[in-house]
Structure formats: structure tokens, C-alpha cells
């Protein structure tokens, strides 16, 4: 055990560490947090930090699936709409069809997986470009959600269901944050410990070489989109519980926040390189930025300008490194 550990320390020297893009973003996150701690009284309080964690959980969970998809050199623009549709189906399951909450949750996950399956199948088997397929799939589930609800929020959910969005464990940890942590842990294991993770990276690096090596490339690409659909659905479950209603217009524009978290975390938008740890750092960076600017009283309009600039700066550095 000690032998392994000392090996590990030898392998990762400081220079290698600094080469990792997520380390750069992490340094940025620390700086940003320091800045906010100095210039506001409230940032560095337990309550606020827990708040930040809860606020980012929705985007953070979606960004996990987005990481899988971007690693394969794809993109998923349908996540916001899939999230809304899964959420309304979850609400419909409980309020309209009288399903047990657990069954309704499984149904919502199934809906998310189904849309991922459709995306992935069209991309893998029909050879359609991911950006177009998922652009079209931004419309379909959104339309279905609006169709089912008539455009109104769907309420009347059992009160016990609110625990997923509003509850706490150990008295301080919000349940959404716990769910996010579990999703990240599972994703981390998938990407670093299982063959499927290696295939996902490899496919993003050179799909044809992986295919000729005898790997079922299509299957694993579909898997990435199914994961993305399921993490979108998971966020849909959390937000439905938090709002205690199915919102057909929820998640509008969330695909962009998820992509921002992924690329801020150092994952190459062209695929093949990146990490899930980077994504959580990216999601936190966006969260701290929003939270800090709120505390500083900066208008939401100006915040959007800031967010855009931060993303550009981050991409500038990671593109420069690649060269």
C-alpha cells in the first residue's frame, strides 16, 4: 500500500500537475472565492457556501452527462428540454396517474434515457451531426411538455416528495447537493475505472482507430447520450421537487450553462481530453461568480456579460496550451 502511494507521488510532479487545465480553473476558483470573501461580508459564511452548492446542483448534474458527450467529440443541446419534459412527466405520474413517487422517479429517468437513446441512435447509426440532432431534440420534448400541461405548471404533488429538492441530511447538507455528489462519484468511477470510460475518451480522440481496433463504437456513443439524458432527467427530478410542480418551461438555456461548466473545467470541446473533476470545478466557478456578483449587488444583466467574458478567458488559456 505504501509502495503504491509513494509511486503515485513520484509520478505526479508539480510540472505535470500544472499542465492539467482543471488545475488552472481550480486556481481561478480559489482566487475568485478569495476576492468575494474580501469584498463581501456574507460570501464566506457556512450558510452562503451551502447555498452556492445547492444552486449549482441542477447545472452541475446536467454537466456530468454533457462531459460524457463532449468527451466523445459530440454535443447535447437537448438537455434543458429533456429536463423539463422528464420533470413534467414525473409530476404527471404522481398528480395525474397516481403513481408512487419512486415509480414516478424511475419513469422520469426512463424518459430521459429514452431521449438520450434517440439522440445517440440518430447520431451513431444515421450518421447525423450531433449539433443538428440535439438541436432538433431541443424542440420535441419541450413541445411535448407544453402539449401535456397546456403550458401551465403541473402541481398537486404529494408533500413527502419535496424532500429531494428542499430536504437536508445531517441537518446541514441539502439533498440536491448529496444527489449531485453521488452522480459525480458514479461518473468518476465510470470514466476512470471502467473500460467504458477509456472507450469514451478514445472515441473522442480517434473514432475510426477505435472502431478498427474492434470496439463497438456506436454502442458507447449511444451510451454517452443516454447518460446525458439521464442526468438531465435527474436534474428535472430535483427541480420538480424543489418547485413542487412540473414546469414545462424549466431548463431553458441550461444546455449552455452545462457546456460552459464542462469547457471551463478543461474538457476539450473537440473531444478526447478532459475530466469529470474539472467539470465540478467549472460548475462551482460559475456558481461562485453568480453568487458573488449577486452579493456585490451587480445587476443580472451585467452578470451575463461577466459570465461570457470568464468563459472566453478560460478557453483562451486552454487553447493556448493546446498549441
Amino acid at each position, binding site marked *: 500500500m505504501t509502495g503504491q502511494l509513494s509511486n503515485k507521488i513520484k*509520478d505526479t510532479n508539480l510540472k505535470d500537475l500544472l499542465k492539467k487545465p482543471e488545475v488552472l480553473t481550480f486556481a481561478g476558483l480559489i482566487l475568485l472565492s478569495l476576492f468575494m470573501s474580501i469584498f463581501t461580508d456574507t460570501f464566506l459564511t457556512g450558510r452562503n457556501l451551502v447555498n452556492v452548492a445547492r444552486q449549482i446542483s441542477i447545472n452541475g448534474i446536467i454537466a456530468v452527462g454533457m462531459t460524457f458527450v463532449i468527451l466523445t467529440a459530440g454535443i447535447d443541446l437537448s438537455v434543458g428540454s429533456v429536463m423539463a419534459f422528464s420533470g413534467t412527466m414525473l409530476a404527471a405520474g404522481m398528480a395525474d396517474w397516481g403513481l408512487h413517487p419512486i415509480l414516478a422517479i424511475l419513469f422520469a429517468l426512463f424518459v430521459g434515457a429514452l431521449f438520450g437513446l434517440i439522440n445517440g441512435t440518430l447520431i451513431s447509426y444515421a450518421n447525423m451531426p450531433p449539433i443538428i440532432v440535439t438541436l432538433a431534440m431541443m424542440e420535441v420534448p419541450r413541445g411535448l411538455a407544453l402539449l401535456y400541461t397546456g403550458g401551465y405548471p403541473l402541481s398537486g404533488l404529494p408533500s413527502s416528495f419535496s424532500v429531494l429538492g428542499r430536504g437536508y441530511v445531517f441537518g446541514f447538507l441539502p439533498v440536491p447537493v448529496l444527489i449531485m455528489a453521488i452522480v459525480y462519484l458514479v461518473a468518476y468511477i465510470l470514466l476512470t*475505472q*471502467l*473500460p467504458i470510460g*477509456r*472507450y469514451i*475518451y*478514445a472515441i473522442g*480522440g*480517434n473514432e*475510426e*482507430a*477505435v*472502431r*478498427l*481496433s*474492434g*470496439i*463497438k463504437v456506436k454502442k458507447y456513443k449511444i451510451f454517452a447520450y443516454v447518460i446525458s439524458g439521464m442526468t438531465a432527467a435527474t436534474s428535472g427530478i430535483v427541480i420538480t421537487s424543489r418547485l413542487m410542480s412540473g414546469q414545462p418551461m424549466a431548463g431553458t438555456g441550461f444546455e449552455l450553462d452545462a457546456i460552459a461548466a464542462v469547457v471551463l473545467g478543461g474538457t476539450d470541446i473537440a473531444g*478526447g*481530453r478532459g475530466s469529470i473533476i474539472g467539470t465540478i470545478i467549472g460548475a462551482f466557478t460559475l456558481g461562485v461568480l453568480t453568487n458573488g456578483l449577486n452579493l456585490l449587488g451587480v445587476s443580472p444583466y451585467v452578470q451575463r456579460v461577466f459570465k461570457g467574458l470568464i468563459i472566453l478567458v478560460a478557453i483562451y488559456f486552454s487553447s493556448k496550451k493546446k498549441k
Partner: protein
Amino acid sequence: MDNILEIKNVTKEFPGVLALDNVSFNIKKGEVHVLIGENGAGKSTLMKILSGVYQANSGKVLLNGDEIDFSNPKEAQLAGISIIYQEFSLIPYLNAVENIFLGREYKKNGVLDKKRMKEEARDLLKVLDVEIDLKKSVNQLSVAEQQFIEIAKAVSINDNVLILDEPTATLTNQETKILFKLIRNLKEKGVTMIFISHHLEETFEIGDRLTCLRDGQWVGTEDISNLDEKKIIKMMVGRDIGDTFPERAESVKKDIMLEVKNLKRNENEDYINFKLKKGEILGVAGLVGSGRTEMARAIIGADKVLNKELFIKGEKIEINSPSDALDNGIGLIPENRKSQGLILGLSVKDNISINSLDKILKKGLFINKKEEKKRANDLVDDLNIKTPSLKQAVKNLSGGNQQKVVLAKWLGIESNVLIFDEPTRGIDVGAKLEIYKLMNELVEMGISIIMISSELPEVLAMSNRIMVMHNNKIKAVLENNDDVDQETIMYYATGGEEYDRAT
């Protein structure tokens, strides 16, 4: 003759690698100067310094007596040094004229003067004695024609020094001949050329003088008329490697390993039928475009076909994808290792283990990383892959070592049949010999090999039998005995029916 280029004590260091170590030699005006050396010897680095891509750490380069210090390739080109890479920089959807004048278009009253550009391009190609359809976009032209356009473009900007980086690597023999004619034309017009090549025969055919680099150091500069093949190889590898090929393995067994029956890719083609014995190397010869690679891809299920029946050791198998092929122990080491064989950004270890991960699982689920590392390490040792560590990204390895990584991937699984498509293309003499020896070891272990190759000496030296293809058809399957020579193969490869030595 005067020296047009003087390279003086040039040193270039990359982090951890001394790519060029105090290199000095001269290029004479108007000569064809061949630059040779194994992969990683520093040829490309030196050419990149001459053409302004890199800057030397120390030493200097004089062009016509003036010290040069280019900060980018464009400056070098304007000063008179152009480089033609193996990968072209043409815009595929533009035609020859538009490509030649890209970035320096003639204008009349603010709009493009197409007439003048067309006339000049036509004159230019005429002077070079090259015929090209100016109406076609370049992606509709052959590789050779695209290369001629590149050369014409470079010459039209400035015709002092032209660097050709392995220009024949992607050409057919016929095209190579036309290229050599073009090179001779240019030489007559006083253009100085630096020619990088791995083909020794070409060196003798086209070169005036030769410089050899090894491990970043200058080994020698000689008149080619004073050299022979053996001497050049000795300069390159620094020792007598003896023969270029190992002794042929005689390990063919009676049993049939693979039978290909009624393989037909589309309606217009004939059926392909052949058998491969256990422990056999079956050489597949033929011209570029004769359908060899397509046949290999059809066998492993990489492309869809109309019809095919495959039998391994007499048993019928279904192969509809490369993954089916893997399950049946059939692997392809593809023609183009960078685009089809390797994941360049991933490490040596990750590339080697990509298709054997599911065989080393812990609890049926997790990658056994210790085992993975051990297996990769063993293969790196067995194949003598030169890499600083298993974690090195394969894009940083030399061509020969990259090819060995592709091979290692298939040695990590239990194979029945390995199909090598141009196994030694673009790799140096030393690595070639190692790959030949390895192929012999494989057949001695009972694996069967299909070796597709355009190098006839290679086919003749390594194969037990030789299958010659022409126009998607098998023209002949020859026992590789003393009656078979390059001429015989070429006869069938160009479409001949019954070969009669007397005629």
C-alpha cells in the same frame, strides 16, 4: 558551384530532447540534395528551421551568404525557401489556379483578375511540363496532381530552394516517374532542391549529393556516385545491419486457418476466393487502387459488402464489424497508422490495451490497472518500443515506434490472423527489420499473416505465397519460389493473364 545554403553549427533543443546537435553542412546551388536518416534523426526539425517554423537555439544558416532568421514560413518563402509537406496545404474545393494564387490574387479595379491568373497558371504548368485540368477542384485530382500544384505554387512564389518532404510516399510508381521528370525540369531551371526520402533507390535515381543525420548529429555528406546501398544504410544506422530482410520463416502448416469464399463488395466486382494456411505469410501485391485494402477492410467487417463467407479453421464465422473480427482473433494493422491505427493524444499504455481491456477485469467490472500496466510494459519490452514511459502520448513517438504500438495492441489478444496493410511504410531501415523479424516470430507461433505491400522486395523476401491483385480481382496466387521475381508480379499487377517467361 557556389553554396546556396550554409548550415553552421545548428543546435535545437526541445524539453528533454536534443533534436539537432551542432549540425553543419552546405547545399550547393542547383543540386538535388538528398537528406536521409532514421525517424527521429532530426531531418524534419532541420527542415523546419530552414523554412521558419522553428528557430535554432544556436548556430546559423546562410542563404546566399546572408544570415537568415525567419520567424514564420511565409518569410522563408518570400526569401526563397519553400517546403512541400506530405500533407498538402491546398484548399480542396478550389481549383488549381485559385490554389496557386491563394493569398496573392491579382486584382483589376478591385475585383479578381481571373483571366490573368489563369493565363499565368497555365504558363507556369507548361514550363514545368505538367498537365492539369484547371477547371476541376483539387479534391477531384489525384494525389500526384495535387502535389504538382503545390510545387508549382511554391516555384511561382520563389524558386531558390525547394524542400520536398518524402514526396513519393503517397505516389504510385507511375506518378513517381512523372514527379522525377518534374524535379529534373526544375533542376534545369536552376532550382535547388532538398529531397527527404526513405527509399534508397530513389536516392540513386534523383540525387546529386546526400547528407545523413543520426540522432540529431551530422554523419556525413557525400556525392551519391561514390555511394551504394550498403554504405548508405551503414551511415543511417551507424552499424552494418547485414541484410535488409531476415531469413524467411518456414513455418507453414497444412491446415487452413482462414478461408475467404465468394467475397464480393458490389455488383461490378468479381468474387474473391482464397485460403490462408496456418503459420503462413501471404503477400498481397498489386498497384494502388487494385482493391487490396478494400478486401482487407471487407474481411474484418469495416465496410459493408454484398456477399462474403468466412471460415476460421474450417468453421463458418459471421463478421459484420471489426468487433466481430476481434472476437474471432482477426486484426487489421491499417495502412495509415495516424488516422486509423492510433489515438494520438492517448498514452502508449492506453493505446496498447484498448482492445484487451475487457480481458483484464477485476470483479468483472473494473479495469485491473496493475495487470494492464504489466501487460503494456511486457509488450513495450518485447517489441523494443522506444518511449520514455508508458504514459507518453503516442503522438510524440517516431513513426517506427508508433507502428510498433499499433502492433502491440494486436499482440495483447490471442490472434488467429493478422492483416498488415503496408506494414513498413514511412519507417526507417532499423525498425523495418525489427517488424519483419516480429512477423516471422508470429507465424512461428502459428498465427497467419496477410501482408499487403507495395514494396516488391518486401513481398518477395517475406511471403510464403504471393497473391497479385488487379482491378479488384485476384490475378494470380504464386508459390514464392525462384521462378517468381518482380517482373512476374508486375505482369499480373498490371492486368496480365497467363505469364510466359519466354515472351
